[in-house]
């Protein structure tokens, strides 16, 4: 069963900086855009680029991803044809261990990859919002006769400290890495999307596995080692929208960009669409008193209040005399009457009591409202912040 390329989608991340958003779900399973989960973008890209087989590597709160993906048929994958496999840590003759880092997650699945005898391995992260046809990346890798190709994008200078920064010469050749630098000399950031020649990667993974001082991480260990040993590392400059929703601020910001039309679920240029599991909610209803502008509203919602610049997931209920602006409301939340909310993110199934008023100023990080938060605030008297 030989395949030219095997795709490994890393979906085990904890997403610590997303705070309460990832307290009980994996980062790739965090809801996004009124309907999707973050991993949907990478999965949809994979299927539409015909990048199969795909191994989805899971670890942290793995069941939240497994449940979402199911058989994979929502994206056109099919378990029975070996197109998609969920790869959680498992036991073998030596016992069993957790994945220790991004590279270790691949090392522990060498047997899975080897069965396809691939030339190339495409490594993706399930944490990003973007459309991409990976065939262009693979073609670039072949053209350059590279050992490794890293997809990269120019990010705003103030964000450089969140990324792995790349320096290159004019020939796309990578000359230096800086991992999350305080004062970057370049703003070209790695997107966490790599193509490796499998034989070379395997050799480095095996060596890295024996190094007890290694973090077993692509960005920190494998790539710098390859550069140091004069392997051919090239950059693929990506054009288009790409967002790492790694923080609460960037998560909220990505939603506002969705409302501004900077990113759309269907990309006109690449003809790439975003697929996800459907949830069979009835049509949404705007009732007497309801007024919705510059917002996204999904099935099952009933709205009798005012909604501005906000994203509403399935089955959200907004009662009369309430105003919601610049907010993201997850599935099943209920907003009472005379509620005034601005710049908040409301978690699944949270009930916001009547007369709640929470307006987060632009200088502060948007606030995540959970049931625990609402209860605690009520005890100290009122929800007027």
């Amino acid at each position, binding site marked *: 069963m030989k395949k030219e390329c095997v795709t490994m989608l890393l979906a085990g991340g904890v997403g610590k900086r997303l705070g309460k958003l990832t307290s009980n779900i994996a980062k790739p399973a965090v809801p996004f*855009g*009124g*309907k999707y989960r973050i991993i949907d973008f990478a999965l949809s890209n994979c299927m539409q680029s015909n990048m199969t087989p795909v191994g989805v590597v899971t670890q942290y709160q793995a069941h939240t991803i497994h449940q979402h993906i199911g058989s994979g048929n*929502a994206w056109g994958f099919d378990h029975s044809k070996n197109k998609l496999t969920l790869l959680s840590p498992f036991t073998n003759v030596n016992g069993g261990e957790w994945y220790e880092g991004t590279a270790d997650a691949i090392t522990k699945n060498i047997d899975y990859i080897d069965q396809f005898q691939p030339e190339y391995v495409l490594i993706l992260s399930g944490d990003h919002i973007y459309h991409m046809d990976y065939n262009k990346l693979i073609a670039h890798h072949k053209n350059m006769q590279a050992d490794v190709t890293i997809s990269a994008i120019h990010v705003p200078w103030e964000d450089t400290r969140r990324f792995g920064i790349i320096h290159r010469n004019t020939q796309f050749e990578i000359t230096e890495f800086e991992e999350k630098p305080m004062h970057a000399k370049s703003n070209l950031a790695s997107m966490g999307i790599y193509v490796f020649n499998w034989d070379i990667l395997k050799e480095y993974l095996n060596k890295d596995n024996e190094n007890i001082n290694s973090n077993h991480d692509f960005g920190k260990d494998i790539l710098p080692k390859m550069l140091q040993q004069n392997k051919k590392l090239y950059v693929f400059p990506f054009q288009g929208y790409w967002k790492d929703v790694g923080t609460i601020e960037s998560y909220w910001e990505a939603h506002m960009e969705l409302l501004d039309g900077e990113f*759309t*679920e*269907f990309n006109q240029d690449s003809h790439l*669409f*975003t*697929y996800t599991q*459907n949830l*069979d909610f*009835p*049509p*949404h*209803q*705007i*009732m*007497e008193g*309801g*007024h*919705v*502008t*510059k*917002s*996204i*509203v*999904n*099935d099952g919602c*009933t709205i009798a209040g005012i*909604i501005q610049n906000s*994203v*509403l997931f399935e089955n959200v209920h907004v009662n009369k005399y309430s105003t919601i602006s610049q907010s993201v409301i997850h599935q099943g939340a209920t907003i009472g009457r005379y509620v005034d909310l601005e710049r908040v993110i409301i978690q699944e199934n949270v009930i916001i009591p009547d007369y709640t008023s929470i307006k987060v100023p632009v200088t502060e990080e948007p606030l995540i409202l959970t049931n625990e938060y609402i209860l605690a605030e009520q005890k100290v008297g009122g929800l007027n912040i």
Partner: protein
Amino acid sequence: MSKVMGIINLMTDRDDFSSLTNDRCVAAIPFASNYRFIDFTLNNFIHSEINEIAIFTHTKSRSLLNYLGSGLDWGLNTYKKGLYILPSSPDIIQQSDIDYFIKNWDCIEKSNAEHLLISGSTFITNTSYQSMMEQHISNNNDMTFLVTNDTQKRSNSISVMSDVNGKVKEISYHHNGALFTGVYMIKKECLIQLIKKAKLTSCKQLIDVIITEFKQYNTESYVYVDEYYYMDSSTQYYHCSMLLLNRNNYQNLMKKNEIIKSKESHYSPTKYGKNATVCNSLLGSGCQLDGSIDHSILFQGITIEKGATIKNSIIFDHCLIKSGAYIENAIVDKHSFISSKETIIGSIKSPILIAKQTNKLSSVM
């Protein structure tokens, strides 16, 4: 209930839907933003735990077959049982559902079900027939008719008179008694006997054989008390659709505990522009709305431009309504294009119908 097989008999659906059924059958008429008529029948069967369903598709089935696919979206794509689509063929005698049963008998025979639950697609509600099925089986009935005590009279409908115990005394085309909903249970054995008797008479329709023969069988009625919609014309369609804009009616039909499954669509959520003013409306997904929409029902993938007005109207999938267009008391069928100069005004009693793909081909050809 493995003892029961479901039959959706589309041959008995009455069709006075004008251009709504130009190129689709009644069962494939879109309803309530996300659904087709057949979704309600299918879901009621599924809620009744019937996992073997045959459909007599009859005529104009292209749209219906495309919609149903393998039955995957309703969980009916199973190795055993599931969905049997039984298309019409030229050798089936015109307007004879008895002949439809005869020509497809192998499919019914191979099922180990002892009873059949038969329904058309125009009785629209969200329920489970389990209690009727239990009554039918525990009373050892040959036939059980689902009836309503609705006082609103329908033309050409069949009424059922029963005694206090539910025993059926009379079935007729006259309006005296409860209204027959088109949903009934019948023992397989009993059906075989009725079909054999039909062969000896000139009856083409199973219901006509039942009307003459039911007294020889153990026949009961079961009264349905929940809300429902029954439609056989485009005017009734418009009227019933508008009733859904009432919050109680909407919640009654979309009951939370009984999810209505429909064909999966991959639309993104609906987007509202900064000029949108939408009120008292029911809306599907995948729309781009920037105009004024009042007291209307919108299906999926619709674009309403800034400055367009939709009032008391129903807009089907994939319509494009340009800036400046005015639509009131109308039903606009799928894939229609309404330009900025157009003003379409019907009356509430007789809404204007804009047929499927209006203005589309003229712009291409």
